C-alpha cells in the first residue's frame, strides 16, 4: 500500500483528509483510485502537478511505477531560473 500525503491545498477535495493509503503500482492507477474516492481530485492531480515518490521529485510522471509501501506527495508545478 502506498501512503499518499495531500498538501493543504488539496484537502478541499478530500474533506480535510491528509493521508490516504492506496493500492496502486503506477501513478496513473493511484490517481484513478484517488479520483474515485474524492471526485474532482484526479483532474487536479493530472493538471501539471509534480509528484514525489519516496522523496524523488518528478514531473510528467503518470506512467511511473509506485513501489510497495512508497510515500507519495503531490507538489505544485515548479520551475527554476
Amino acid at each position: 500500500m502506498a501512503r499518499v500525503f495531500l498538501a493543504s491545498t488539496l484537502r478541499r477535495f478530500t474533506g480535510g483528509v491528509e493521508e490516504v493509503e492506496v493500492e496502486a503500482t503506477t501513478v496513473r492507477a493511484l490517481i484513478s483510485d484517488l479520483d474515485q474516492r474524492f471526485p474532482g481530485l484526479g483532474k487536479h492531480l493530472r493538471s501539471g502537478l509534480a509528484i514525489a515518490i519516496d522523496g524523488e521529485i518528478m514531473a510528467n510522471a503518470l506512467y511511473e511505477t509506485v513501489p510497495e509501501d512508497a510515500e507519495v506527495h503531490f507538489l505544485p508545478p515548479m520551475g527554476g531560473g
Partner: protein
Amino acid sequence: MTTTIAPPTTTEANPGYKWVGTRPVRHDGLDKVTGRARFGADLTLPGMLIGAVLRSPHAHARILSIDTSPAKAIDGVKAVVTGADFPMLESEAGEGGEGEVDFRDLCHNIMARDKVLYEGHALAAVAATSRRAALAALAAIKVDYEVLPHVIDVEDAMMPDAPVLHEDMITAGMDPAPETPSNVAARYLHERGDAEQAFAGADVIVEREFTTKPVHQGYIEPHAVVADVAEDGRAMVWCSSQGHFMVRTYTAKLLGWEPSRIKVIPAEIGGGFGGKTTVYIEPVATLLSQKAGRPVKVVMTRDEVFRATGPTSGSKIRFKVGARRDGTIVAASGWLAYQAGAFKGSPVELGVMCMLAPYNVPNFHLEGFDVVNNMPKVAAYRAPGAPMAAFASETVLDEVARALDMDPLEFRMANAAEEGVKAVYGPRFRRIGYRETVEAIRDHPHYSEPLGSNQGRGVASGFWFNFGSVSSATVHINEDGGASVMTGSPDIGGSRASMALMAAEELGIDVYRITPIVADTESIGFTDMTGGSRVTHATGMAVIEACRTVVADLRARAAKIWDVDVDDVEWVEGRAQHVEGNHPPLTTEDLAETSARTGGPITASASLNARGAGVAFSTQVCDVEVDPETGAVEILRYTTAQDAGRAIHPSYVEGQMQGGVAQGIGWALNEEYLFDRQGVMENPGFLDYRIPVASDLPMIDTVIVEVPNPGHPYGVRGVGEVGIVPPMAAVANAIHDATGLRLEELPMSPVRVLAAISANGG
C-alpha cells in the same frame, strides 16, 4: 592556442575519474575572448529591417483607440502590428520558467489589447529600413488612453478598494471562493502539526515583518532577435534565450502556427538568470517579418529591459519562530505576499516551500499570496521566490539563536534537516548535504577571524530544488576518432565544458577531442530550458546515455573485427581491449577509420525525462563594516559553501557560487525598482539601478561540498541557483552584529542604514 589543465582541486578526490573534476579551458572560450562569439544582436541578414516596439507611458490605462496609419505613411516603414494582429488565446497552462505559464496572459503581455497594465507594456510594433525610420513611426502612432488608477505596493494591491487589474480574477485556493474579483490571484497554504499550540511551548519567540523590492535579473545582454519568414511561411528565428525550444513553442502558440514551421537557432546568450525563460519580442519580430516579407531584427534597449521584462517580485513577509531553550525549533508561522506584476504567477509558493527547508520543523503554518500589480509581469530569477523568503526566515532564526545565546551555526546544526526528515514542502529528504555546508563554514578560518570596530559577521543558509525534465543529446564519432556532442541546452555559463567532460569520461578520449555543440531546434530532440539548475544533471544524463550507447557500438565493432563475442571486449580509456589480450587494442581512431566496413558511421542519440534530481543547500558567512557617518555597508570578506554533489568542472561550479552571491549582495545593498507617483519606473538604467561593480566586492571564497546525489551517475546536483538564497540574510545578520540593528527592509542602502542608526539614537 595553448591550453593547460590544472589538477583537480575539489574538496574530495574523484576516485576513478579521469576527466570529471578537472578544469579544462572551456570549448567556447576562445570565441568569447576574441569577439568571435555571436550573441543575439550580432546577426545581420541581407535586406534586414529594424523593428521597434511602442510601449505604454501609463501604469494602467484603457486603450480607447490606436491609429497606426500615420506610421505606415512614413518612408521606409514596411510593417506595423498591434494586438489585433495576434490571435486571442484562451487560458491554457504551459510549462514555463516558474513552473507554469498561461498562454492567455502571455498573449496579452507581449502585446496589450484592451488595457495596458504597466508602464512599458507593448502595444504596437513597426519594422522599417532604419532604426531612425522605425522610431519616427513609433512616434507617429496615435493612441488614445483612458488613464486608470494604478497600484504597485503589494499590500495596497490587496486592499478591498484597490484598482482591480483583471475583472475576472477570483482568488484561487480560498474555500469558499470569493464572490468578487480582486488582485489576489491565489492563496497557498502549507502547514503541519499545530503551530499555534506549539508556540505555547516555546521558550523564545521572535516575530518580525520584512519588505523587499522588485529586483531585475540584470543580464548584460538585452533581449535580441532576428526573424526571417520565407515565402512558404516557414520562419527562422535567431535569438538568445534560455531555451530555443521554448521560444519555438511559445512563438508558435502566440501566432497560432504549428511549431514545425519555426526553426529557432540559439545565439550565444549573454546572461539570463531566469529572465530569458519566456518570450517578449520573438513573436513580434516573427509577425513583422511575415508582414514585411523581409528579415526583421529587434533589439531591446536597456531601458526596455527594465521596463518590460523580468523582474522578480517585491514582497511583504511576516515571519515568526518559536524555539525551546535547548535550541530546538518547535514552531514557525509565516505570511507572505509577493508581487506578480501584471499577470498572476509570482513565485510565492516556492518561497513558502523553501524558506524553512534546511530545517526539521514539526509545526508550521505558512500562507502565501500571489498578488497582481501594475508592474511588468515577474519572470523567474535564480531560485525564484526563495531569496526574499530566506531573508525573512534566516534573519529571524539568527535572532532566535542570539536570544538563546547559541552560536548561529550550532543552532542551525541542532535543527538541520537530513536524510529521512520530512521536508517542509512534504516529502522526505534523500541523501542531502546541508549539515556538511554548515560544518564547512564553521571549520573555515574565516569564521574565527577577529573583527574590528564597526565590523560584524553574519551567517545564513539557503535551500533550492533542482529539476530534471526533458533533454536530448547526440554523439558523433568523427573519422579521426574525435567526437561531437550535440545537446539542446543553451550554454549560459560553461555547460559545454561540463558536457564535454562527461563525454570524455564515458568515451575515454581527451576532452579537447570533443566538440560540444548547442544544436538548433531542427538538429536535436526537444530539450527543456536551461534553468532550474537542471542542465548538468538532466542534459548531462542524456550525454552519458548517448556515450554509453556509442561505447557499446564501438565494442561491437571491435568484436566484429576480431571475430569474437562482444562480451569479450572491454572499453578502457578510449580503447577496445580483448579480455584475454588475444588482439592488440583498437583505439577510437582505429574503429572510426574502419567504420564504413563495420556498419557505417558511429553515432548515437539519447532523449530522456531525467529523474533523480537532487536538492541543493548553501551556507554562507559574510563580514561587513558599517560606516556610522554615512550608513554605507562594505563587504569585507565573504565565504560560501555549497553542496554540488559532484563538481564536473569545479571552476564553473565556483563561478556559479560566486555569481549567485554577488547578485544576492546587490539585492541586499543596492538594487530596487523605484516608481514615481504615476507608477513610472524612475531608474530604468544601470546608473540608477545599481548592480555591484568590481570595486564593491571582495574576493568570494568558495568551498565546494560534495555529497553525491544518488540520482545521477556521477552524483551531480544543480549548482546554478541556491547561491543567491542566503546573501541578503547573511548581510543583514552581519549588519546586526556590527551595529545591533535589525534591518527589515531591502535594499539596506546607506539611506536606510543611516535612518536605522539615527532612529536608534546613534
